[in-house]
């Protein structure tokens, strides 16, 4: 435990999530009446703004203390929520470098998105929208600041719901463009897919808690299990667990927790929901599905990194491999996207893959570093894309082109964002740090080499697809003829803020890099990567790896150059896409040959040749269908729903219900049978007995002749016929028969009585 740290603003940190959630309800109920024109935007604005200011104060205070006091800050302000048996759940905030850094980014982007929405959602907005956005911000901030797994999980699930509601925001859409899902369907898919991950996380949390049941006994001497991050970490660090549980179990728990991250952070194989999630408003895609919520998975792993560190090393290897697969897969799919948001969506998945790689190769701090940077530039890119869509009225990049002249602000900020993503702005530093970490890690895990390779290839792909997008959107002539206009200040100002933040960050990193390279004390204060590692992992920051840096700059440059050669229109020429070709999606644009340079011509014809070839077509098809993963899942769900559930339903309708009714029917049949039995069989027996007794009487020679006569005659002559008649009668209604019943009963009773009295020995 560190020395006592006295925080001023930190005591109010609990308000950070509370402000937006309260505002969320206020907007919902009075948004219709107050600030009517903007659907209650003002309230949301004030709330997120207040939250941002508070976050700035809190994080500023903490970062200041970290930088200058070198204090180890881990401040938990909690109160008991409830307790039942051993289970004690607390609620409150945990202030440490990780939580404040991520919160700061979340609060910033949330605020900017709300500002941006004022204009962007002026027609389609509603109080519901702002309520949900605020609710989301509150949930994400709750998650970031949560001191234990339960609170984290609550924030986590609440985000899922907000995401669900916001993806389905345009639920009343009647028709959707072909190939795109209906918002309601997309929302459902997103929620359910992430839910699959969530249950693994849920299981992981509970198993970890159960581990602490025994561990706490050793640690505290009493049973004091906990969901608390710090508490569990202390237990693990104190070494009380090794004797009880082996790292294999921990690897299992770690992978369960990672399962949650796979869902939320859209890692392979649960990434399928994220592209569909773009059905929501662009602001939502920006805030939730690229900048913040999808980072929650990365944040979660960083938060519980002590589990991964303690666990068997295979756990982290799997994390890294999943990250590698995701990165390269999504990057390659992004190549063929024509929807501007689709490109950015796959790009997000791919970048999340990077972060996962970072986590998997032991670079938790650099992963978070990339979270921050990616948050900034991806928010910038998405908001710019929103501006583009808003201005051009379409999402299809084939219908764009030439926007540069119409949108003076947007093209600039988008260029900054694209460069950053490609690896030239602030994105360079964190991405490079991840790649270099991966490279260093190959020594420990040979398989990481593959991951490293995939990271490098992805760097190339990233540069290529983002350049392709930019080249197709901004330069040249417009291809659709829409009326294009620049967005208003409510939209461009947040863009510029983000762009400037991005540039400033790039500047700071560069200064820090220079500082640490040339050992300049003052400058190295700006080496954020270094600090991140120090704060988050408690170690010494890595030295910048020039080899990796130059390699990645090299592949990035190649990517941009290639894109330039293929897609750059060169002049304000009208270029078209051959729409009749079956796979025109990734086809290169046609343009008058004299307008382009020789080398461009050659490259383009080469690319065309490749694509026209059979393997080329196959690859295209695979990429366009996202490796058929989505199709496979759909098929499976379809099979499950149509066949399995239907089978269950059939069982329900036919087996259980029928069984009950059959029981009833058997019961009734039994009654009928017993009636029949009563009426015919017993009756028959009774008659038989009667006849026997009559015969007995005749043998005794003391009978009335007539009775014998009649009895014998009837008994012999009509016996058979009569029996049949009696059998056919249901109930005779004949009084002698009733007497016969009695006779049988009487005889039986007498026999039983005699036997039981012991008069006759048995």
């Amino acid at each position, binding site marked *: 435990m560190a020395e006592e740290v006295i925080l001023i603003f930190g005591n109010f940190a609990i308000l950070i999530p509370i402000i937006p959630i309260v505002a969320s309800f206020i907007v919902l109920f009075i948004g219709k009446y107050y600030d009517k024109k903007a659907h209650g935007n003002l309230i949301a604005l004030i709330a997120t703004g207040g939250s941002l200011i508070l976050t700035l104060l809190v994080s500023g205070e903490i970062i200041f203390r970290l930088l200058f006091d070198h204090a180890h800050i881990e401040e938990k302000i909690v109160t008991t929520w409830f307790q039942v048996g051993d289970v004690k759940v607390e609620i409150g905030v945990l202030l440490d470098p990780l939580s404040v850094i991520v919160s700061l980014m979340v609060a910033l982007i949330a605020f900017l998105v709300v500002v941006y929405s004022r204009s962007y959602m002026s027609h389609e907005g509603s109080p519901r929208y702002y309520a949900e956005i605020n609710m989301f911000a509150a949930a994400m901030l709750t998650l970031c600041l949560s001191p234990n797994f339960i609170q984290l999980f609550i924030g986590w699930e609440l985000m899922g719901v907000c995401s669900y509601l916001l993806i389905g925001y345009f639920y009343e859409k009647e028709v959707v463009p072909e190939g795109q899902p209906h918002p309601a369907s997309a929302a459902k898919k997103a929620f359910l897919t992430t839910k699959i991950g969530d249950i693994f996380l849920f299981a992981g949390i509970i198993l970890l808690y159960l581990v602490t049941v025994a561990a706490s006994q050793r640690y505290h001497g009493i049973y004091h299990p906990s969901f608390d991050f710090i508490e569990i970490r202390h237990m693990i660090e104190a070494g009380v667990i090794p004797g009880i549980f082996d790292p294999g179990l921990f690897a299992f728990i770690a992978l369960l927790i990672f399962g949650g991250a796979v869902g939320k952070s859209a890692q392979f194989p649960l990434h399928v929901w994220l592209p569909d999630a773009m059905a929501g408003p662009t602001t939502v895609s920006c805030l939730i599905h690229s900048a913040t919520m999808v980072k929650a998975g990365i944040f979660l792993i960083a938060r519980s990194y002590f589990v991964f560190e303690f666990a068997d090393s295979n756990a982290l290897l799997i994390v890294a491999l999943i990250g590698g697969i995701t990165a390269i897969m999504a990057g390659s799919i992004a190549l063929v996207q024509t929807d501007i948001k689709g490109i950015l969506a796959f790009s997000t998945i791919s970048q999340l893959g990077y972060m996962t790689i970072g986590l998997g190769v032991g670079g938790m701090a650099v992963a978070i570093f990339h979270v921050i940077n990616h948050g900034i530039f991806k928010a910038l890119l998405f908001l710019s894309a929103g501006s583009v869509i808003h201005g051009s009225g379409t999402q299809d990049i084939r219908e764009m082109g030439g926007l540069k002249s119409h949108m003076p602000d947007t093209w600039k900020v988008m260029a900054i964002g694209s460069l950053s993503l490609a690896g030239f702005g602030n994105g360079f530093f964190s991405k490079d740090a991840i790649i270099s970490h991966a490279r260093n890690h190959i020594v420990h895990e040979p398989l990481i080499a593959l991951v490293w390779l995939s990271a490098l290839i992805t760097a190339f792909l990233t540069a290529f697809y983002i350049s392709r997008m930019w080249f197709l959107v901004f330069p040249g002539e417009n291809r659709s003829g829409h009326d294009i206009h620049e967005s208003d200040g409510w939209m461009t100002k947040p863009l510029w803020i983000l762009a400037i933040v991005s540039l400033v960050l790039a500047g700071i990193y560069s200064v820090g890099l220079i500082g640490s390279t040339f050992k300049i004390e003052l400058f190295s204060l700006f080496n954020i990567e270094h600090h991140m590692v120090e704060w988050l992992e408690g170690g010494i920051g890595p030295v910048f790896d020039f080899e990796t840096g130059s390699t990645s700059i090299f592949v990035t440059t190649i990517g941009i150059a290639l894109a330039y050669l293929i897609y750059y229109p060169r002049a304000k020429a009208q270029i078209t896409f051959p729409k009749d070709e079956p796979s025109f999606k990734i086809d290169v644009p046609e343009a008058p040959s004299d307008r382009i340079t020789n080398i461009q011509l050659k490259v383009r014809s080469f690319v065309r040749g490749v694509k026209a070839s059979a393997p080329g077509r196959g690859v295209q098809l695979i990429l366009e269908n996202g490796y058929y993963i989505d199709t496979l899942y759909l098929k499976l769900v379809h099979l499950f729903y149509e066949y399995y559930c239907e089978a269950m339903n059939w069982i329900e309708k036919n087996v259980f219900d029928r069984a009950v009714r059959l029981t009833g029917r058997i019961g009734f049949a039994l009654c009928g049978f017993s009636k029949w039995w009563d009426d015919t069989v017993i009756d028959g027996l009774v008659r038989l007995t*009667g006849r026997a*007794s*009559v015969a007995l*009487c005749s043998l*005794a020679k*003391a*009978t*009335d002749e007539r*009775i014998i006569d*009649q*009895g014998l005659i*009837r008994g012999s002559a009509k016996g058979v016929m009569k029996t049949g008649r009696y059998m056919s*009668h*249901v*109930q*005779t*209604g*004949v*009084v*002698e028969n009733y*007497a*016969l019943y009695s*006779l049988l009963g009487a005889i039986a009773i007498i026999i039983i009585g005699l036997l039981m009295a012991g008069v006759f020995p048995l």
Partner: protein
Amino acid sequence: MIADASIFVGIALLLFFIGLAGFIKSKSAIRMLIAVELMLNSANINFAIFALYNDVGFVTGQIAVIISIALAAAEAAVGLGIILSVYRNHGTVEATDFQSLKG
């Protein structure tokens, strides 16, 4: 002393079962009534015999016989009344024919 009376008891029993058999085998209601009388009278034999052989006061059994005869007569009266009304309604007294109440 029962041993002495046992032959008579046997006869009474036999008579009772003859009556029962008659009751069961008869078709006519009147005949059935007669069979019941037979059964009642078999009990009367018992009473009389036991009074003779066993009873110190000789009284109870014989009183019983008288009571039983009186009751049998009352019963027969009621029974014949009913049979009469049945005959009025159905035109027959064959008990086997009355099967409207069944099921």
